[in-house]
């Protein structure tokens, strides 16, 4: 069957396309078939011009002030209009929070089907995605059209966009929308707050062991906080935690006060993508480790030589007291900095 592929993308605040959108464009091109580009945003001309040479037969857009913001009702209406105008059989879009919010609803409206968190696309097309929170991987084919795909980063090398690659005639689609939702803006964590930092080279994960009684029979929360925050300050690492540690803070116990559910990595938390990860005081059970699926180099400090990490889940397991090791690590990092 000859497919019509619609690449859907939204512009960033500066009018450009994100790296993930360009990776998605490259993935869309690899599918073959007729390519149509659909853009959503406040002003999409700059974005369209930057990919003018991508080989799309048409450039469609829904643009204007109402579409500058990320919001279900407006984004769904825009995407619905674009899919209809393109008569797309396959709709491929980046797995951003904006599209993750609305694209399943659009698939529902158009009688289509959707697969999200797609990590690979092969001839067929066949797509690969994870099930049970990164615990098993499936390869899928679908006969139903339109088929919506939200793809994860790393699926392809980004299409090499250039400023003013060409001057594109963008077909603007008129879309009437009404919404009961006002977007007020974005709220960043406080400057001193430690969070997951997607751009950090290192993920540091604190497990529940930091809050447990130590060899002297007492818990050392203040020492744990000092060591962890000192390490983060020295390395700019992203801070993650295991669910058990976050739950303790939710129960109001006097534990590490800078941790919240936003830091949680694993089964019910995030699955971050950092080149390196250092886990401390975490036992490495499967629900924790599924959050490490995309961490390339993994090292662990744990007192238990038989912990879950030892069973082929980490590259290096240091069987040692994390308090003592991190004290020295921080001191050595301070020496290195000077």
């Amino acid at each position, binding site marked *: 069957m000859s497919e019509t592929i619609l690449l859907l993308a939204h512009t960033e605040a500066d009018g450009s396309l994100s790296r993930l959108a360009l990776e998605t464009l490259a993935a869309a091109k690899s599918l073959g078939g007729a390519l149509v580009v659909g853009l959503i945003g406040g002003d999409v001309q700059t974005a369209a011009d930057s990919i003018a040479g991508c080989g799309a037969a048409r450039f469609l857009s829904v643009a204007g002030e109402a579409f500058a913001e990320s919001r279900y009702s407006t984004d769904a209406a825009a995407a619905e209009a674009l899919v209809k105008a393109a008569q797309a059989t396959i709709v491929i879009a980046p797995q951003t929070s904006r599209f993750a*919010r609305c694209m399943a609803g659009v698939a529902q409206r158009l009688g289509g089907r959707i697969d999200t968190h797609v990590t690979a696309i092969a001839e067929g097309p066949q797509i690969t995605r994870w099930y*049970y*929170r990164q615990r*098993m991987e499936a390869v899928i084919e679908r006969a139903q059209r339109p088929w919506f795909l939200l793809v994860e980063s790393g699926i392809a090398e980004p299409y090499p966009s250039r400023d003013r690659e060409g001057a594109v005639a963008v077909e603007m689609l008129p879309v009437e929308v009404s919404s009961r939702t006002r977007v*007020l803006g974005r709220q960043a964590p406080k400057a001193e707050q430690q969070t997951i930092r997607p751009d950090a080279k290192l993920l540091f994960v604190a497990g529940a062991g930091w809050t447990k009684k130590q060899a002297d029979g007492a818990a050392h929360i203040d020492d744990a906080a000092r060591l962890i925050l000192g390490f983060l300050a020295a390395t700019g690492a992203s801070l993650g935690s295991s669910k058990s540690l976050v739950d303790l803070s939710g129960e*109001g116990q006097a534990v590490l006060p800078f941790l919240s559910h936003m830091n949680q990595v694993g089964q*019910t938390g995030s699955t971050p993508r950092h080149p390196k990860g250092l886990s401390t005081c975490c036992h490495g059970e499967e629900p924790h480790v599924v959050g490490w699926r995309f961490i390339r180099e993994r*090292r662990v400090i744990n007192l238990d030589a038989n912990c879950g990490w030892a069973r082929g889940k980490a590259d*290096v397991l240091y069987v040692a007291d994390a308090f003592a090791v991190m004290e020295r690590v921080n001191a050595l990092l301070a020496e290195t900095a000077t």
Partner: protein
Amino acid sequence: MSNSFHIVVCGGIVPDPLQTLEPVIGPNGPALKNELLLPHVLDPWAAHALYEAAHLAKAHAGSKVWLVSLASKAKLQQVMMTVAQRVPLELVAVDGPSGGFTDSFEVAAALAGAIEAIPGLDRTRLLLLGGWESASRAAGATMQMVGERLGITEQFQGVDELTVGEDGSLRILERVEGGQHQVSVCSGPPAVLGWATGNLPEPANSPQIGMQNMRLILPALQKAKAAQVGAGCTFANVALPKQQRETRMVKDTPVEEIAREIVEWIVAE
């Protein structure tokens, strides 16, 4: 001004996260090995949504919470023995497969049908809650589809906080990229909220709430209608990830030596 809500929480059940999971291919497509023998729990993000719903209902007199769940009746009854002790709720059970290898489109049809049949549900006051993703299919698609089927176009995903204004408006924090939240204000219900973890702890067990709930839960399980829910796609392969690392164990080694090795590793490009 008094604001009361009719809160419907969609929540499936999943194998306890501590269980080892292994896929098998059966006559109806992929499934989990010994799936019916695995202990199950309420899907974690849906459970957060349920706790938020109970918190909201408690704060706004006249509100009511329904839990709509698609699962095999026997497994659902086991899970409800625990869940029912946590928060006051009315169960709407749909008898069908709860595994991850079903299609969100078909699951949404079954859930929306069950919600539409709830007697006395005021859809102008409806807040449709659930987890933003399940711990099984993990697609983050079902809630939007249920919302669309019910005609709700104000939808939010990755919600961590909901504050109800005096005018009945909903101030919502959704997770977005870069560890940030998008802040939105919706004029009021109906709305769909797919919850992330929120901020509430797991409620303590209350045998009293459990007794009250179970009086309605058992009849609800008995009258659960069967739903035909399939995969909707062809699975060419389902497998556990093969990657197994050669773990190097460093033990009986001085702290100084370990620390130096870690620092060298961190600073190396």
